[in-house]
């Protein structure tokens, strides 16, 4: 079972050096525990471009699809047997990156 753990942020500041090294150490532990699938940080919402190609021509517009105070700053994808395992990993991830995180299961079809 895979879980998407999004990192929620509400400022323009990037992760500090201390936060980066805590995240690296955490990622190593996730890999060692066999829970690693993927992780990445995202550039600021101001760098986003929205494309709508549902009509005749693609319409390109500047900015994120929704303006909010809080946004997605990065994410992890974990492999975990159940939610308790995912929550334990996410709790350690939140501590490491010093931000709130949201845990969501991938839909099973």
């Amino acid at each position, binding site marked *: *079972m895979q879980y998407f753990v999004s990192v929620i942020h509400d400022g323009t500041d990037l992760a500090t050096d201390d936060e980066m090294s805590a995240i690296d150490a955490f990622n190593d532990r996730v890999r060692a525990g066999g829970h690693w699938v993927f992780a990445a940080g995202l550039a600021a919402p101001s760098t986003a471009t929205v494309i709508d190609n549902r009509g005749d021509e693609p319409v390109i517009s500047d900015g994120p699809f929704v303006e909010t105070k809080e946004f997605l700053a990065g994410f992890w994808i974990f492999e975990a*047997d*159940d*939610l*308790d395992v995912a*929550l334990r990993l996410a709790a350690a991830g939140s501590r490491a990156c010093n931000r709130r995180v949201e*845990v969501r*299961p991938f*839909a099973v079809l």
Partner: protein
Amino acid sequence: MIDFRHAIDGAHRDEWARIVAALARRFGDLDIAEEAAAEAFATAVERWPIDGVPPNPGAWLTTTAQRKAIDRIRRESRREDKQRQAQLMYDDDPPQPVGAIDDDRLRLIFTCCHPALAMEARVALTLRMVGGLTVPEIARAFLVQEPAMGRRITRAKTKIKAARIPYRVPATGDLPGRVGGVLSVLFLIFNEGYLATGADSDPVRHELTSEAIRLTRLLRGMLPRDGEVAGLLALMLLIEARRTARVSATGELVTLDEQDRGSWDGSLIAEGHRLVMERLASGAAPGRYQILAAINAVHTSARDMRDTDWSQIVALYDQLIVLDPSPIVALNRAVAVAELDGPEVALAIIDRLGDTLARYHAYHAARADLLRRLGRSEESRVAYDRAIELAGNSAETAYLTRRRDQLA
């Protein structure tokens, strides 16, 4: 006919959680477990009056529920997963030792009270899956429309399935934290029965207090060494013992000092006292529920309000406030201080809580009473008015109105 009804009610009370838990373990799906258990009881209502009550009603119901669950899976999985279906058919669950079956119910309680579920969903799900209450019963108890309560339960079950909330008792390290959540769910259920919040509901909902006690007993049977489980059970028993004395024939709340102590339930009090003594003898530092139980043990030891050992009660509140420095604990402590040091001292404490408790009816009721005792009638009347405005419970409103109207 009455015998069948009695047998079915008894089986429902004793076997529901066991059956749901066993099915949840085997099929890994709360929906299937719950619906199959409900169908098995519906079949019992049809069959038992004709065929007679089976010699082992629990086994009969479990077998019937298993068959219903398999029928349901067969119907629903026609389009997919033939292999899983085949596996289910041949999985002849070996008979489980009693310990493991009890453990099953404990897992069910912990699944329903998982911290990833909203508190109100935990309460509803526990009453449904572990308590066996119907959705209309739960909706009525919490004054929520039935479809809304149904959606709340469905949503919680969907989350359990989609997010894969495990059907398991948490690891030893997580246990104290998780038991705490389970106990708050049980205490919420009890409190809603003890002093219903709705103006239109009965002031006391016995079906909820007794259900909360039954579930706490179940938990205590499974975690006999947990001090807070024992404490919560003792607390509920000591409060429940005074239930019939708490509301008058005319539906008015009767406060502790005016209650007919002869009508308190002696056997519940004795059981509650035994549990409190057992916890004291353990020498372990008490938690919140154990201290609250000890406070209630002091109240129920006194033959008369005047005999109450108020210094001990204040000392226990002093202990409680360290663990739980909430304004509500401070308010209750002040009420005890009034009996020990007089209303003036207590009023000074209460007045400091005004900012945080301005919307809490008990704050204004306590203040009104102290002002009345100090002869400050006008201020007391204002405080009673505010308390009446905020109180949701009809028995409490009736009591506060009478006290206000008695003011000089």
